[in-house]
C-alpha cells in the first residue's frame, strides 16, 4: 500500500489533487482512497488531504500518520506545519517551490526522505495562464510514486480531461502541457 499525505492551504486544490490522483490510480486497476481532512474551512488555512493506493481492497478508514510520500502544495507551510511528521523510512517529499536546491535542502534539514522539487506555480502559469499547482503536482506524484509510466499517464489524463472539461475543451491543451512539463520538471535534489 502507498500512503500519501497532501499539505496545502484552503483554496489551493489539495483535496481536488488527492481525488484526481485516486482517479488516475483507479484507471490502472488499483484500489484507491482519496479523502480530505476537514477542519475549520477557510481560504488560506492549512489543510490536509490523503491517498491510499493498493492492489488489495482498502478497509482502513483513518487519517495517515506514517506516509510514504508527503506532497507540499505551498512551501510557506514548511515550518509552521510539521509536514514530514511520521514520513516512512525510504519515503519521499514532493515540494512545490521556486527556491534553489540548496535552499530547499535547508528547508528540510534533518529529513531523511528523498526530496523532489517542482516549480508547479511556474509550470502552471506558463502552460495554463493561471496558478493551479495541483495539476503539475499530480504528475510529480504519479512519477515519484511509480504509479504508472509517462506514456500511460498522459494517455490516461487526456481521457480524464476530455471528460472533465467536455464543456470547455480549450483548457485541455494547457492542462496536458502542464503535466508533460511537470513530468520532466520534478527533480530529485
Amino acid at each position, binding site marked *: 500500500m502507498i500512503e500519501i499525505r497532501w499539505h496545502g492551504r484552503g483554496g489551493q486544490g489539495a483535496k481536488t489533487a488527492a481525488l484526481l490522483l485516486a482517479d488516475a490510480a483507479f484507471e490502472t486497476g488499483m484500489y484507491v482512497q482519496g479523502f480530505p481532512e*476537514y477542519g475549520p474551512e477557510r481560504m488560506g488555512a492549512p489543510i490536509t488531504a490523503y491517498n491510499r493506493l493498493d492492489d488489495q481492497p482498502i478497509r482502513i478508514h483513518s487519517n495517515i500518520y506514517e506516509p510514504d510520500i508527503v506532497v507540499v502544495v505551498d512551501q510557506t507551510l514548511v515550518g509552521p506545519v510539521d509536514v514530514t511528521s511520521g514520513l516512512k523510512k525510504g519515503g519521499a517529499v514532493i515540494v512545490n517551490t521556486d527556491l534553489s536546491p540548496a535552499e530547499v535542502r535547508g528547508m528540510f534539514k534533518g529529513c531523511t526522505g528523498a526530496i523532489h522539487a517542482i516549480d508547479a506555480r511556474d509550470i502552471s502559469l506558463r502552460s495554463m495562464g493561471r496558478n493551479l499547482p495541483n495539476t503539475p503536482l499530480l504528475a510529480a506524484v504519479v512519477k515519484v510514486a511509480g504509479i504508472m509510466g509517462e506514456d500511460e499517464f498522459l494517455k490516461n489524463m487526456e481521457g480524464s480531461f476530455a471528460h472533465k472539461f467536455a464543456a470547455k475543451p480549450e483548457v485541455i491543451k494547457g492542462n496536458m502541457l502542464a503535466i508533460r512539463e511537470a513530468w520532466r520538471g520534478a527533480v530529485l535534489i
Partner: protein
Amino acid sequence: MSRNDRMSGNEAVATAIRQINPDVIAAFPITPSTEIPQYISSFKANGLIDTEFVAVESEHSAMSACIGASAAGARAMTATSSAGMALMYELLYVAASDRLPIVMAAVNRALSGPININADHSDSMGARDSGWIQIYSENAQEAYDNMLMAHRIAEHPDVMLPVMVCQDGFITSHAVENIVIEDDGPVRGFIGSYSPEKYLLNPAESLGVGPYSVSVYYMEIKRQQFEAMNSARAVIAGVSEDFAAMTGRDYGMIEKYRMEGAELAVIVMGSAAGTGKAAVDRLRGSGVKAGLVKLRVFRPFPDAEIAEAMGGVRALGIMDRCDGFSACGGPLGAEARGALYGRAEGIKTVNYVYGLGGRDMRVEDFEALFAELARVRDGAESLRCRYHGVRE
C-alpha cells in the same frame, strides 16, 4: 450486470437514489449530507429522474413534506445530518407511528456543542427510540447497497416503517473509494414499484392519517409498531438474501469477522469497523485470538445474533461513537450488555466511547484497546465504561 467505479459515499448514495427514482424528495442542506440533495438537483435538472424535488426551508419541513407525500401514496425520501436530524425528531416519531415507509440518507455528524461538523453517531442515536429502522454502513459500497435494500424493507406489508441508512460523515461521505455499481435495470427490478395498500389519494377508500388517539386506542398503535419492528428482522434477512442473489454481496444483521476461536472481541458500527478489521488481521498474525462483530442493523436490535456471535469470547469491548450521558456508558454498550444477559454471561465487558466529533480511530487505537481487553481477560480491573483516545 455491474461496473467497477470509484466515488464518495455521498455520490454512492445519490447514485442509488437516482436508480430508485422516488416520487418525492424533500430536503434541506446540511454538512456533510449537502452533496446528496446537490446531486439530486442536478439529476433532476438533467432529466435523469422525474422525482418531485421539494426544496423546503428547514428539516422539520423536509420530514413534514415526506410524511405528507408518503401518506398520499408516494415513495418519499430525504437526506440529513446532525442538527438537521435533531430538528426532525418530532416528525420522525410521527412518520414511524403513521407507518410511513420513508427512506432517509443519514450522514452521521456530531451534535452541538461545541459546534462540530465531523462524524459521530449522536444524531441517529438520538433518534434510536423514534421507531425508525436503522442500518449503518462501513463504507461507500455498503451505503449504496443498504440504500438499494431500504425500500424493500420499509414497504414490506409486515413492516411499513421508515428506514434510515447511516454512514459516517466525511470519513466515508467525502472519501472516494472503489465501488461496484449495479446497472439501473436490475436495480429497478429488484426494488419494484410501490403500491401501498392504503393511501390518502385513493378515491375508492377514504382514510385518516395521524389523527388524535385517545388512551383507549394509543397503546394498540404502539403494540403494532413493536410487532412491525420485530417482523423487520425476518424481512431484512429476506431482502438481504435476494440482494446477495443479485449482486453476490451478502449482508446479515451483524457481520462476524474472524470470530472463530476469538477470546477477545469488539462490537463496532460504521466506518471504524474496517479499521478494526485491519487491527484484527495484524493481531491474528501475531497469534492474538482477536475478532470483531460489526452491527449493520441497530434497529431492530440484533440481540440474539450478538449473543450467538460471542462463542468463546472472554473479554469484549463495546464501541460507542456516542455518549448517551447515562454516566454508565453509551447506548450500544447498554443494549449489547442487555443482549448478553441471560444468553452469554460471564464475558468481561468494557464499553468504550470513541471517535466523538470526528476524533480519529486508528488501527493502533484498536491494538491498544485489544491489549487492554487481554489484561481484562487475565483478571485486571477495568472501568465498565471509559473514553478512548482522549486527553485527560
